[in-house]
């Protein structure tokens, strides 16, 4: 079956421009996570959705970052007034469980969107 898909795969933005990154999770998956991965680093948590509810947004680096999942399936991560430090790969992951964590569960990652802010 289809895995997690993300679009666009690559995005180049001028500093100050707004961008929107899309995630299509595996159908029926309850949990959806967004992670940010800087070059040479591991992914870092941004935000978590359980169905349409955003239950944790503690990892969002600033109020320029906004995420939504209005119908509990597709999610969009929006970055307003992009800055050069926003350049990174943005990964989306989904899981069939609620609050999956590590104990006996797994998360399925998409290929990521590579954002370059000039």
């Amino acid at each position, binding site marked *: 079956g289809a895995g*997690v898909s993300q679009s666009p795969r690559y995005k180049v933005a001028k500093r100050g421009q707004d961008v929107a990154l899309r995630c299509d999770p595996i159908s029926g998956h309850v949990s959806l996570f967004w992670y940010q991965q800087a070059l040479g680093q591991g992914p870092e948590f941004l935000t978590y959705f359980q169905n349409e509810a955003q239950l944790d947004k503690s990892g969002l680096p600033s109020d320029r970052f906004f995420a939504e999942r209005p119908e509990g399936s597709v999610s969009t991560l929006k970055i307003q007034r992009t800055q050069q430090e926003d350049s990174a790969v943005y990964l989306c992951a989904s899981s069939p469980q609620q609050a999956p964590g*590590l104990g006996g569960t797994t998360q399925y990652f998409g290929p990521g969107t590579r954002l370059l802010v000039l």
Partner: protein
Amino acid sequence: LAKTTQPISMDSYEGQEVNITCSHNNIATNDYITWYQQFPSQGPRFIIQGYKTKVTNEVASLFIPADRKSSTLSLPRVSLSDTAVYYCLVGDRYYGGSQGNLIFGKGTKLSVKP
């Protein structure tokens, strides 16, 4: 938080067995040990998970000693396609964020040479 320490990089040759060790000295009773693999331009992919002793699947084996303060991911007979970054994660259902988000370190970059 149970912090993990693993080598930054490792080199190997095709056909060899590769063992990557992860240290997690302050692992908690409820913590599981999980390994993810990440290829360039792809998201991380679950490899294996264990709690104690040994776990084996079609991809790898995970060895966990009795004190659980370390673990070793074993990849048998690696090929060029096993070149990737390998992450060791330790935690329970509520590890890190309250919703169970994964916490990655820098991982181990494995390079397999012909």
